[in-house]
């Protein structure tokens, strides 16, 4: 199974690998800057993140080597393991910043919700591949995919982590759309639910609204969040065309930015590299995402196509939401920027995802 075929080596997915390495490099560089102090240039954050990136590259290799078609048989196993780890977090997780999201394993803390993103794509691909692209996708067939989304969503909401739940929802939606969910279902749902939401919301009493908001996101401090976004916009905008130069960002150094190495890492980058840097970074993401979709389109089978498209969608939604959020175009929901934000589990999961997409790409000619 892990024997390396010469044909596979010849088919290694170089473009995706190179793009990934460039983004990981950008990420480490930005974390170094975001946590830079003259007395101690290499922060613990930077060192830890570098170690995780190294571990992630090993994960990438492993994820690339086995034949992804094994997931026909083991897709649900992967899912159940991921769910079990979320249950463990709920029962005996490590708390931090008001939420319970981590499993402590000696010196490392793993965040299972990051791996759940992969597991959800894997299980949806396993569930949907048989009839994807055909005309057999009827309403009744949606029950299973919805249930497969609802279980982790419930568990993660309890941590609580609204951002990740929103992301899982968007990823599940993307996989279903690509698999062939008729557009009219979506339009009917949008027509029914869309107007009902604000209508229903207005009819709630203020205290009920407050209860719902605080249920969904207890840490939310609407005013503080607004302040952070304002500071983030100032940081991004003040980069102007060419940026202030590496390690020269002032917003960040004066600690005006919250979570400058996690959710708001993009504003550190944009302040230092300006519009030119932001455009290049977005171009790198665009290239990676479009390459992922090309791989999906050329995949050997439906399973591979859905796997590649779903994993790519995960990266896309995170990039789009995070940058929109840090630039004040969307409310702050706590979604990190792939490859740039600090977070070991996230880095590891992303590199494994890249490995899986490469896996699909390399096997498009095999039988």
């Amino acid at each position, binding site marked *: 199974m892990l024997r390396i075929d010469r044909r596979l080596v010849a088919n290694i997915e170089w473009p995706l690998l190179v793009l990934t390495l460039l983004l990981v490099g950008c990420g480490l560089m930005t974390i170094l800057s975001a946590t830079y102090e003259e007395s101690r240039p290499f922060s613990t954050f930077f060192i830890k993140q570098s170690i995780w990136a190294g571990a992630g590259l090993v994960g990438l290799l492993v994820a690339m080597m086995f034949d992804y078609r094994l997931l026909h048989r083991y897709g649900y196993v992967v899912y159940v393991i991921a769910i079990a780890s979320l249950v463990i977090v709920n029962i005996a997780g490590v708390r931090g910043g008001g939420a319970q999201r981590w499993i402590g394993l000696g010196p490392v803390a793993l965040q299972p919700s990051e791996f759940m993103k992969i597991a959800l794509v894997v299980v949806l691909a396993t569930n949907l591949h048989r009839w994807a692209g055909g005309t057999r996708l009827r309403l009744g067939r949606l029950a299973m995919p919805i249930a497969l989304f609802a279980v982790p969503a419930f568990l993660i909401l309890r941590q609580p982590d609204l951002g990740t739940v929103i992301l899982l929802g968007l990823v599940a939606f993307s996989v279903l759309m690509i698999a062939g969910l008729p557009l009219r279902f979506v339009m009917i749902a949008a027509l029914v639910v869309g107007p009902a939401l604000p209508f229903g919301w207005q009819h709630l009493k203020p205290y009920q609204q407050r209860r719902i908001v605080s249920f969904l996101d207890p840490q939310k401090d609407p*005013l503080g969040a607004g302040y952070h976004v304002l*500071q983030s*916009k100032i940081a991004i905008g003040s*980069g102007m065309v060419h940026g202030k130069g590496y390690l020269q960002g002032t917003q960040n150094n004066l600690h005006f930015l919250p979570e400058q190495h996690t959710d708001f890492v993009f504003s550190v980058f944009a302040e230092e590299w300006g519009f030119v840097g932001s455009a290049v970074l977005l171009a790198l993401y665009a290239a990676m*995402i479009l390459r992922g979709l090309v791989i999906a389109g050329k995949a050997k089978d439906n399973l591979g196509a859905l796997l590649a498209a779903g994993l790519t969608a995960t990266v896309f939604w995170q990039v789009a939401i995070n940058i929109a959020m840090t*630039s004040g175009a969307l409310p702050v929901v706590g979604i990190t920027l792939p490859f740039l934000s600090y977070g070991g589990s996230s880095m590891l999961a992303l590199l494994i995802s890249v490995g899986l997409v490469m896996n699909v790409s390399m096997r498009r000619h095999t039988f």
Partner: protein
Amino acid sequence: MFGSHEVPAELRRRIAFASAAVSLALLLLVLRMWSLQILHGAELAALSENNRIRLRRIAATRGRVVDRHHRVLVESEASYDAVLVPEDARDLENTVETLAQFLEQSAADTTAILERAAKRPKFQEIVVKRGLEWHEVVAIETHQADLPGVSVHVTPRRSYPEGPVLAHVLGYVGEVSPGDLAENSSYRSGDLIGKSGLEKVFDEQLRGINGGRHVEVDAVGRELRVLDKVDAVPGSTLVLSVDLDLQRAAESALGEEVGAVVAVDPTNGDILAMVSRPSFDPNAFASGLRSKEWRALIEDPRDPLTQRAFRGQYPPGSTFKFIVAAAALEEGIINPFNEIRCSGTHGFGERQFRCWRHGGHGSVNLVQALAQSCDVFFYQLGQKLGVDTIARYARAFGLGEPTGIVLGHEAGGLVPDREWKRERFGEPWYPGETLPVSIGQGYVTATPLQMAHAVAGLAMGKLYRPRLVLALEEQNGALVDSVPADEMPDLAVRPAVLAEVREGLVQVVNGVRGTGKKAALEGITVAGKTGTSQVVAMGRKRVKSSELPREQRDHAWFVAFAPAEAPEIAIAVLVEHASGGGGSVAAPVAGEVIGEYFRLKQTREAVRYAQN
């Protein structure tokens, strides 16, 4: 390379569509960057030059607490605080020292402020002093040029117009501690939060949600313009079941005695009055208690901070007898006509157990035994019932476990039985230990709240969980949440039995030889039970309570309900280390409170009649 596609055309079509959508979305983000970094770049760069955007909080008005007739018990009033933003103070140390002169603060205070400032982001404001006097406000305003970064904020401060009345129930507020901050992520440094009583339990509902403004400030921290504003949401109003008039009457009835009074409505569990004395003035906490005042409260031997009404546990003494009486009748140990002879002592093995009345009561039936509180009668009942059966009935009347009042740390009292003794001491229960239990001594303890609860249960034949909070309302009076009466599991005692025991209690107050005649009222039949519980075991010698040192004196109890025919109020009075027994010290207090209840009721009815 371009071999047969195994993936259906529809799937590839959808993937191509996704590629287009993704490209469009990312292009929009590039445009967003264009807008921020090129179109508005210069403007935002100027803001970042000398970052002068500040986040100023608009403190939410903390909700009020009102009594059942919506009379104010706690409210918020305006207070002036001196606030410092370290970022704007050019020379922080100098500014803090100058400020200290105006505010008459010590060197220790200034050091503490500088320490706090060092620990937090420089743009966050620090409250230097709360509740400024008017001359201090004027001093800061007029010396603004010498005090860069200092400003005066108007914030709501807690005010308790009734002072020490109901203080233990209401509780008090204080500045959030580092421990609280670690525990609850919605707290912010400098917040005032509930530290005890209702202020603590309902902190979340009372607190409301702070708002704030993003403002641009000049070099000394003066506001130039407001960039954004989020209004504060005021906290909810807490409507209590307490009747302020009755509460005041109960406070004054207890007078300078140390003890507690709890009055409840037996028909729904409403707590009408809850007194614990001595008390303290929560207003002192609202403006920041000085350490001297705090020490005085802590070190006072009479423990003013202790909530005696439901945290104080005392042997219930003879008030416990109504439970033993109900148990004996229900279990068929005795019927209402059986008489037992009391000669003043009851022999058990080697020991002689005494009746409180030297010469004995002669032959008495159950009603007479209750009325005259004959100990020997109850020794005999207890001996026949056994401790486990007594315990079962005591628990049915709500003793032995917290009643479930919304305030925290409620004591549960103790109802001993065989199992408890084995677990606690690893020893079997000795039959001789049942005798003190049957007159509410020995290991038995209960809180005044539990005794009021239990006697209310006798009055109605069923128990309601004590209800202190009736409703939560918005500031404008709109109902947010109301608390229904909560009926507890059945007493499992026949109505005929309850009627007989109630008759005994009527005779306590109204009988010729009753022990609680001082609680009697004209026109209203009061039913009650006295109790005098020993603090130290007496030897052979009988000493008058008033001749003992205070901490060895007996506790005086009185529990009652009225009117006996259709009860509306049930009450428990406890006087710690009283100068006399339950009948002479506690019964008059209960009588006064019950009398006041009916006077108030009459006045309200008259007013209502006049208005219609």
